[in-house]
């Protein structure tokens, strides 16, 4: 190897392999990050913390479901799109859980990895299995519209941390609504088979919609304190918007009754245990370890 050849290789790779720099530096700096929330000194009041836990659990469990699609989606573009949505939701979850965890002197990871099934507060819709692409899109339409309406209200929250997290999340959720809407149109008006499959999926997810708008005692206190809306107050607009998408997709708005559900009290479907077993297995094998 001549000197000049060595030098040529040296020049080519100047700066390559600078592995010592922190990978986390890539995290966009403009947003309120979980790390920033962790550093704030005032922990939330008990009700605020419990409410943040609910919001965080919804996004965490749905993110865990959606992330399954990365490397399995119908098109590579969808690997990217569903991955993006999952990543957004995980970001919201991390912020809400970090905020909530301060009330109990814990961390986001202690909440995510060391709670038992009955301690999770996520809505039943978020833990529904992915099914095929149609079921995933139906679940996305229902949940993303709900979340957009909710975050739109939470931007006005008297709790400034919840308001700040929601303001950032709202921009992302608007994209999630658009993604789900576009797919409903494509599948609803695509082929007979796709219309049939999406209609089936919309019907299948519908019984879990009712719970999104169920007012729990905590919601009454949260609404009275101006922290967040009563879930029931979001229903009418949700119905209008979701019906409009389904009708434009030339499909029928499902008529099924709501399934009995008390997820906010820790009463979950049969599905959550498996999801948590998988999510928590490695962390629980190494108590006290940091990663």
């Amino acid at each position, binding site marked *: *190897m001549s000197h000049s*050849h060595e030098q040529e*290789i040296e020049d*080519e*790779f100047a700066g*390559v*392999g600078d*592995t*010592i*720099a*922190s*990978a*986390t530096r*890539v995290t966009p700096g403009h947003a309120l990050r*979980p790390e920033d929330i962790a550093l704030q000194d005032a922990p939330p009041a008990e009700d605020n913390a419990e409410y943040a836990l609910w919001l965080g659990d919804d996004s965490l469990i749905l993110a*865990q479901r959606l992330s*399954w699609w*990365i*490397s*399995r*989606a*119908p*098109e*590579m*573009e*969808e*690997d*990217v799109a569903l*991955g*993006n949505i*999952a*990543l957004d939701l*995980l*970001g919201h*979850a*991390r912020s809400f*859980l970090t905020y909530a965890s301060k009330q109990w002197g814990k961390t*986001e*990871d202690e909440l*995510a990895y060391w709670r038992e099934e009955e301690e999770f507060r996520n809505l039943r819709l978020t833990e529904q299995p992915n099914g*095929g*692409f149609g079921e995933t899109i139906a679940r996305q339409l229902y949940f993303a519209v709900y979340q957009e309406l909710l975050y739109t209200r939470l931007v006005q929250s008297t709790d400034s941390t919840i308001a700040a997290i929601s303001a950032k999340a709202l921009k992302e959720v608007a994209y999630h609504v658009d993604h789900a809407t576009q797919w409903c*149109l*494509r*599948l609803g008006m*695509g*082929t007979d*088979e*796709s219309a049939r*499959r999406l209609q089936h999926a919309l019907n299948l997810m519908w019984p879990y919609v009712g719970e999104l708008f169920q007012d729990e005692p905590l919601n009454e206190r949260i609404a009275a304190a101006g922290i967040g809306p009563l879930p029931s107050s979001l229903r009418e607009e949700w119905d209008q918007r979701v019906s409009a998408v389904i009708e434009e997709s030339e499909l029928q708005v499902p008529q099924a009754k709501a399934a009995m559900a008390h997820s906010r009290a820790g009463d979950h479907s049969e599905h959550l245990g498996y999801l948590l077993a*998988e*999510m928590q*297995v*490695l*962390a629980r094998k*190494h108590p*006290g*370890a*940091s*990663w």
Partner: protein
Amino acid sequence: MSSTAIDPRATADDEGRAAFDAIIAADGRIEPRDWMPDDYRKTLIRQVSQHAHSEIIGMQPEANWISRAPSLKRKAILMAKVQDEAGHGLYLYSAAETLGASRDSMVEALIEGKAKYSSIFNYPTKQWADVGAIGWLVDGAAIMNQVPLCRASYAPYGRAMVRVCKEESFHQRQGFEILLSLANGTPAQKAMAQEAVDRFYAPALMMFGPPDDASPNSTQSMEWHIKRFSNDDLRQRFVGMIAEQVKVLGLTLPDPELRFDEDSKKWIHKELDWVEFMDVIKGNGPCNAQRLERRREAHEDGAWVREAAAAYAAKQSKKMQEIA
């Protein structure tokens, strides 16, 4: 037309070839509409599509740990990383399309087992530290291969590689950081990190391809300025880099023979198992069948979705025409 008339196509080819040779000689760039020799086109389609397939298949071993990532921060970083790989696959398929290969035909060749991809992805990720070892060693080796490709003579490939390389260096850092955390963690975590490095070291060194004296396609690729450095040059550079970095990790490389030889100014590393390498390339690695089956399954399960999207697009464009 008399027998002495000049075939206009032959003249165009001669002119095209002269222009192509001049561009290559001046270390310039070939654009999609420029004339290029058939073999140059074929070589590039093969290389760029294999590269795209590697990104897409390469999602699987790491995606294997998304659901079980041991902290939410690690989960977020890993999801972003695997998603980047899908993006890289898309840029690269697009670059190959500019050479006249259709994405459908490339994807079909992959699913039918007719196309190759980097053999490293046929090894399993058995434990969490493997995600770190892949980032550090596999992405590290990929960067060594890819940085010179940013200057590849075929311009769309070079442009795709510029974007890919920026993200790859982030990937390598995240892998290194995973291993660093584990190496400074509990004894069980450190053992996990060492075990992963032990398993991925030799396959990562083999990512540069066979030794120079056994790499028949390399010379032509170098003459065409697609490839800039030989397999052994790149392997040397890589092994030198990781030999230093492993000290920062406080781990070891599974290579007692590894040393820098002052006389030859070369790194001496252990003999690599090229029989195993060829066997994995031929389809007999631990996970070849599994990786292809996953891709086939996603493709087949998604067929109705793609058909619906195409039908909807056709209906929409018909509607637009009727309005216009």
